[in-house]
């Protein structure tokens, strides 16, 4: 029974995709693997935390990239020894990882607790404020961020070759994807979805609604922290500008491009974004249509605008719609409510 249930088309596709991804270092150029795909994995995990909060909790967070940054800064502060910028705690690199994740999770808990009594647009705006204030905190308190950022951050020796980072990224992505999806069927996940649909009813059933929201935000912060550590390993440095309002918006934009209620969408959106960011400006076409002066952001903004106008469900949503139509031609499929449970794959 269980074995057969695992053998669905979706799961086979996922397994094939993972095999393909693991084989990529032998198939594609080092640049494509170490730059495009590694970034996709890291950003995909961070974007997946937005999807997690939006889909199960009905909370659209703009603070996720701040948490990525907090983890990065904290790792830098903890791992570097005296003489460098920042706090220079000089911890063992693995201990530094634990420290970074612990701090990030704690920050997420505090921020989540403060926001736990607001919902919807209020939550969106409050997390935007978090993101901007967080940026200012790192920009102004140089003790934490080093003057002009923390540089020459080394990753642990085990992670030395870039391709290992890629494998870690793939592994983490698979874990996060499966974990978040499985969470939807657990008590905590169901509870969170109940809170999303009707918080008052949940309270009368005995649930602590603000606490559920807080813990969901904390869990998302923990995962964002993992992505942040990977990111700072990959980048080797971090500065306040990298967590300014712009990057925070871009992470949300990735989730939106991919489809904010589909976990697949997080990685899809990250991939599309990184691909566009890397190659779009090289296309000769861009010169021809006379927007050389206008930069990349105009294009990406226009793409998001187009997606939001056409389908707020993003690319994954469009794909799902096409698939439904192909599978059941002619029949008018009832569209599942946004953020509804996925049919158990």
């Amino acid at each position, binding site marked *: 029974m269980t074995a057969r249930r695992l053998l669905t088309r979706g799961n086979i596709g996922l397994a094939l995709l993972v095999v393909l991804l693991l084989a990529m270092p032998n198939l594609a150029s080092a640049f494509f693997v170490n730059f495009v795909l590694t970034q996709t994995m890291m950003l995909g995990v961070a974007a997946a935390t937005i999807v997690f909060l939006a889909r199960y909790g009905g909370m659209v967070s703009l603070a996720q990239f701040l948490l990525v940054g907090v983890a990065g800064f904290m790792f830098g502060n903890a791992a570097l020894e005296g003489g460098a910028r920042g706090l220079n705690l000089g911890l063992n690199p693995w201990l530094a990882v634990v420290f970074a994740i612990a701090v990030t999770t704690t920050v997420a808990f505090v921020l989540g607790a403060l926001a736990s009594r607001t919902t919807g*647009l209020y939550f969106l*705006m409050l997390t935007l*404020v978090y993101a*901007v*204030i967080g940026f200012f905190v790192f920009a102004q*308190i140089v003790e934490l961020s080093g003057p002009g950022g923390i540089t020459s951050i080394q990753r642990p020796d085990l992670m030395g070759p870039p391709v290992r980072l890629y494998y870690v990224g793939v592994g983490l992505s698979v874990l996060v994807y499966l974990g978040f999806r499985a969470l939807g069927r657990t008590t905590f996940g169901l509870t969170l979805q109940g809170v999303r649909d009707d918080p008052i009813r949940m309270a009368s059933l005995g649930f602590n609604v603000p606490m559920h929201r807080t813990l969901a935000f904390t869990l998302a912060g923990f995962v964002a922290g993992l992505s942040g550590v990977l990111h700072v390993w990959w980048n080797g440095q971090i500065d306040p500008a990298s967590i300014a309002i712009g990057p925070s*918006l871009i992470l949300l934009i990735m989730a939106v491009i991919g489809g904010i209620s589909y976990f697949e969408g997080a990685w899809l959106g990250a991939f599309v974004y990184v691909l566009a960011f890397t190659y779009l400006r090289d296309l000769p076409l861009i010169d021809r249509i006379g927007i050389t002066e206008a930069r990349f952001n105009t294009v990406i*903004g226009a793409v*998001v605008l187009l997606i939001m*106008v056409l389908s707020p469900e993003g690319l994954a949503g469009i794909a799902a719609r096409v698939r439904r139509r192909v599978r059941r031609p002619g029949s008018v499929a009832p569209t599942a409510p946004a953020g509804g449970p996925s049919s158990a794959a």
Partner: protein
Amino acid sequence: MTATLQRAPAGSTRRRRTELRRLPVWAVAAAAVAAAVWVVFFADGTPAGAAVANPGNFVVTLLDAVTFAGLLFVAASGFTLIFGLMRTVNMAHGSLFLLAAYVAIRVQEAMVGRSRNIDASDVGLLDWVVPMLVGATVAAVLGLVIQQVFLQWNEGQELRQALITLAITVVLADQMLREFGGLAGRMVWPGAVTHFFSIMGERYALTRVFMLGVAVLVGVLLWLWLNKTSLGMVIRAGVDDRQMVRGLGINIKRVFAVTFFVGSFLAGLGGVLGASFAGVAPGTDGDWLLNALVVVIIGGLGSIKGAVAGSLLYGTVVAFAPAYLPSQYSFYAIIVTFALLAMVLAVRPYGLFGRPA
């Protein structure tokens, strides 16, 4: 079983409930009093010094707070007006702010006939007022276009609207960078108000008081519009119950359009004031979106009264934190802003004058 029922006398019950509700209020009040006591008596090692020892600095900081609050109010009132009626979070508010500032600077340069190093003495009152009106009108028209093209047809899909305006922000920021370059620009106050006056032995810029005057004028006009005209009444009614307003035969689409126009105009006005006050540069749009957000989150979304209260509170924190934190901690002023936000949200999750959606 009956015997176990302890029926508390009604009096004590009422007191207990009051205590429960007031606990965070007391904590916040205590924090505020502590901060005030610190500022007045103990703030010795700070840039400004304790108020009893150095009253001049205190008055100047107070003036800074109130005048900055004026600017905050102009910038945030349009945001809260639009949200209150239409439940649209206009993420492009900061972009309209910045655009109006750039346009006004261009117009002023054209009117004065010089592009850099404009001297205040060359700027007549009209050389400031006309660019202000032009800049704000451009912002208002663009706001109206955004509303008509992108927001009008998906009313009620609040998140989608927020994301659409977010995307517009990204595009506008990029295009403004292309058009106006990456350098900081500045509006020049009219020469007539570019003076200093003396208060408690300290020099203070008249331009800041002028800015406050403009803000108060805007506030009064806004109040008159909302309270004394039938359109204003319709807008307030719409904040309470949009559907019922429609049920009374009022063309809500037209009201929406007017509101978005006025709200964007206010954003533009704020932009011109901000450009005169501190100058603008790429990134100012994000800063002022943040400022507007902090004000309305503190004051309560959709409430003009809340925008006033939020501006004053936030302005106070912005002015006092750097002046009265111990010198070596001045960089931590931003934390105080966060603390203000945290304190307000702990007492009222939807802001001082806000109501849950």
